[in-house]
């Protein structure tokens, strides 16, 4: 029993680290643009397919496929932002959220139109699990874990040491003050959407690497993404990371107790509990 708990925690650590990638994307877009982008699931799906296309159709190595997943989803995100969501800025966050939901449906079905409903597997070698005593982990999991970590380290460096990263944080903190200091809000918003969408795309590919890419890959992810972001505090990037790790572990632990199908329902329960007890989440700003 103890070893199965430790195994679940290990799996949760890996899946939570992967979940952190799209959760950062979602929360970053919320922090700068002030609306929940419900297209995040479809953006993850686009990333999964872009990565699959590069890996299987073009025969690229996984590293380059990740880059295409990031770019594909990032470009889709910023195009949708400019064409559909941004014109509604004056109508308020709720209208933008509803619009992003419609965008998500359009994007998901464009993928379905192009690739059909069949699952698409990546071209990765089958390898024997690595074992430590009773614990086991697949080399693919280790690699995905490493990719997620590297990406988060890059993002952290970009946010802290580049001019644009500081401008993004300043805008999230106080848009008026940032403008006063000469930050161009439109540029910051565009770059945030590219990066946020791109992170969702890489997240989608990471998930698809474990199983396969299909048009609902991203949709299955969104409850966990929302839960991670709300638990960490909407708009907080460190919060999204911690939230994702906790959600990943709780999901894996509940698989021990409940039917595996309920895995995704855990996210919803966590959202309800957090909003009732501490709506600002673990690291959040006040949310009134």
């Amino acid at each position, binding site marked *: 029993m103890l070893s199965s708990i430790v195994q679940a925690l290990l799996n949760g650590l890996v899946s939570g680290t992967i979940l952190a990638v799209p959760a950062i994307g979602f929360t970053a877009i919320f922090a700068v643009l002030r609306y929940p982008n419900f297209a995040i699931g479809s953006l993850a799906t686009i990333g999964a397919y872009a990565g699959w296309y590069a890996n299987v159709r073009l025969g690229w190595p996984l590293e380059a496929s990740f880059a295409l997943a990031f770019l594909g989803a990032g470009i889709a995100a910023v195009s949708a932002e400019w064409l559909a969501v941004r014109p509604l800025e004056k109508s308020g966050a709720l209208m933008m959220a509803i619009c992003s939901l419609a965008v998500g449906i359009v994007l998901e079905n*464009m993928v379905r139109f192009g690739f*059909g409903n069949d699952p698409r597997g990546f071209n990765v070698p089958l390898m024997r699990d690595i074992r430590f005593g009773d614990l086991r982990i697949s080399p693919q999991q280790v690699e995905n874990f490493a990719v997620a970590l590297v990406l988060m380290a890059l993002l952290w460096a970009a946010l802290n040491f580049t001019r644009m990263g500081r401008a993004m944080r300043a805008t999230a903190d106080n848009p008026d003050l940032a403008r006063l200091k000469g930050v161009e809000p439109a540029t910051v918003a565009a770059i945030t959407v590219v990066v946020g969408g791109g992170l969702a795309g890489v997240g989608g590919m990471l998930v698809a690497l474990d199983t396969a890419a299909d048009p609902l890959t991203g949709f299955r992810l969104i*409850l966990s993404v929302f839960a991670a972001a709300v638990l960490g505090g909407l708009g907080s990037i460190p919060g999204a990371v911690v939230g994702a790790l906790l959600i990943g572990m709780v999901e894996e632990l509940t698989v021990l107790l409940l039917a595996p*199908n309920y895995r995704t329902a855990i996210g919803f329960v966590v959202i309800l509990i957090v909003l009732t007890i501490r709506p600002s989440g673990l690291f959040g700003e006040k949310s009134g």
Partner: protein
Amino acid sequence: MVNYLIFILVVAGVYALLAQSLTLSWGLTGLVNLGLVGFFAIGAYASAMTTKWAGWPIPLGIAFAILVGLGVGFLVTISTLRLRDDYLAIVTLGFAEVVRLVASNEIWLTGGTDGIAGVPSIVPRAWGPNYHITMLVIVTGLAITVHLVLSHLASSPWGRALRAVREDQIVAAVAGKPVVLLKAQAFSLAAAIAALAGAIYGHYTSYVAPEIYQPLITIYVFLAVTAGGVGRPLGALIGAYLLIGFLELTRFMAEVVPGVTPVQAAATREIMVGLALILLLRLRPDGLLPERNQKAPQPAAHPKGTTP
């Protein structure tokens, strides 16, 4: 052909009920219910389970569905009504998914993915064409009744208070309106209307299963309400019929495109639905029948020289 047309009109009536529900929560009160389909499903299951398995009479089953919708609507709002409105959007979106998960997995309760077949019908199916016509009369009558009640409520002091909450919660609170209570009332009542629509639809099609309650249905209703006029119950009613017309049109359009697989045709339809909503929000967010400003009541005129 005529039967098909009647079938479509019955479905449109069900959507008209859903559109009234969304008008109450979103249009009048500003509460986005992205889990509308979840309440639709709950109503369908509540009435189907009690009438088919417990042998309740149908009116009782439908009444039970409305009560369950009311109660669950209240539960969903408890944690979010004090927060920013986008939290409610996230919670309701998740809620509909959880309803589908529970419906698929709790086989002892819901029949699992097989669903519940042979849900009793409101009037005997043996009536043939008359069955559909009778149902059309019942559903249309119900949609109009709900619409009239909602219009009345919308112009009542309660409806004005809801709109005040929608426009500015702080001002409404300063004016002494119980903001959280009003939101909870509006959302729960709207959930009950959606549950009623679900119950009727389940009895009409005689089949209730998780796969029916796709998130896309919620988008359809948003499309109907946006097309007809957000905040105008009559607009939402008309919008529902426009929606069904549009959906049939997309079916036709997707079929005439040559060399398209069935999967691609289905995807094309959904793309058209999504694009229609995006375009409407952009070009005509007030819809066909924009909400009218209610005039403040005129103080009674007093003849000169007399004191009021």
